């Protein structure tokens, strides 16, 4: 895929229209930034322990004092829903 096609794909993925002067400037900046962040490729990496090596400890610190059981049953969700009718959730009609 050439650079122009890649830019088009990324604009599309981001839900941005790719026309106009501003977008031309942004595409130019995009390639500038990309060449800057590519510096990370210079660093030779071994197999890394990644960043979850302390996951257990983090989990322990983040847990509250009491263990809470969360009930996500549909029945419970229906009960707490602020808007409902005949066992259905009511949502805003947008279009």
């Amino acid at each position, binding site marked *: 895929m050439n650079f122009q096609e*890649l830019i088009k*794909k*990324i*604009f599309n*993925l*981001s*839900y*941005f*229209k790719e026309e106009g002067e*501003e*977008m031309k*400037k*942004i595409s130019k*900046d*995009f390639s*500038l*930034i*990309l060449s*800057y*962040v*590519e*510096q*990370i*490729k*210079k*660093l030779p*990496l071994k197999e*890394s*322990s*990644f*960043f979850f*090596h302390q996951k257990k400890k983090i989990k*322990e*610190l*983040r847990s*509250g*004092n009491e263990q809470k059981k969360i009930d996500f049953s549909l029945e419970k969700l229906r009960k707490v829903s602020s808007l409902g009718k005949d066992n259905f959730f009511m949502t805003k009609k*947008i*279009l």
Partner: protein
Amino acid sequence: MNFESFDFERIKEGLKKKEFSCKEIVDFFLEKIEKEDKKISSFLTITEELARKSAQKIDELISQKKELPFLSGFPLAIKDNILIKDIKCTAASKILKDFVSPYDATVIRKLKENGAIILGKTNLDEFAMGSSTENSAFFPTKNPLDLERVPGGSSGGSAAAVAAGFVLGALGSDTGGSIRQPASFCGIFGLKPTYGSVSRFGLIAFASSFDQIGPMTRNLKDCEAFFDAIKGKDDFDQTSVDLKKIKKREKDLKEIKVGLPRECFSGEIDPEVKSVIEKKIKAWEKVLKFEEISLPHTEFALPCYYIISSCEAAANLARYDGIRYNVFEDIYRAAKDLLEYYFQTRTFGFGKEVKRRILIGNFSLSSGYYDAYYLRAQQIRNLIKQDFLSAFERVDFIFIPTSPTLPFKLGEKIEDPVKMYLSDIFTVSVNLAGLPGLSFPVGRVGQLPVGLQAIAPSFCEKEIFGLMRKIDFS
């Protein structure tokens, strides 16, 4: 009465002794903002009604001779990416220009409970993406110390409001240096707490694994008190931590060792900034022991930060579709279908810098590029964290200049995104490693301030404050 030089204790004491009322405090600061903020543009919204209601509550407590809360009457500003119930919250973006928050962020709830007075919401770089506050969709903020220069960013409005004396403290958020760099540029104190020390519930997300809310103040005492008021575990933020469970390090801090990373004191730094810092370090040699250390992966920190934070930003900002939060009626009527409405809203609603970061993020996460960019950056993030862990086996604290330059001129870097990113070169490593960092003023070049960061191991914020009390940084 002029309240500008007061700290939180003096305010509380004066209220208790009935030297002045809380209404007088509010009148003083609102009048000052009204008169002087036209030239600085630090505020986006003034919350006069909220401030007057809170002041009335404090004055009632005084007249009823009841106990006053911790931060009673302390006048504050809040960065406009932190939610306050029933107040507009824009994140300085057109896409949220009319959004009114339905609830309080946890930090706001805590500040209200502690009797603080919120005077307004401050300007920022759109969605906290930037280092100069020039990326605000509404207007740039100017540095009160030199109106031709930037106040730093992204919490530039908060820093400018504190430095100008419009408030005694402000909340900022720090994803890659957004509290510390503007604090340095405006000559004030700014703390980026450890990731998990302060709840992020009610903070508009930019990059969730980096974002932290923190205090910005005119003096050290207020900074510590302000941090104490907002810290702690919150059931609404699963990454927040119960600080009582943290084991304190068992080190005797009588002989404090401070590490100076050689990578941060050579190359990128402005010689005038370096000279101010080195002079100060020389003066502290009587009370602190300095040691040269190495953080070998520092050169990769900035590109690594821009990849990961942009990936997280792309995911977090996908929610802005022009239907939730804010509807754009004109665009809606002109669009031929829903998809076109999404495209038009996002193209119109986001500014250039936000778009650039979303594009970099979506690129780095897309198939074929994920391993080379996102995964690789995460691996480097781990190495950077390891660098700090190894350094803290040798030293108790690390000092790094907050910014490589003095506050730069408005417009000087706005057209070159990479040049602007380099402003954060000394702050992003702390976010990558999730550590606490306090930027404090150490001197001036002319009227322009220079800041230095004191960095400690995770959850050692109180030790940083302890260290600061030992040294003369005036």
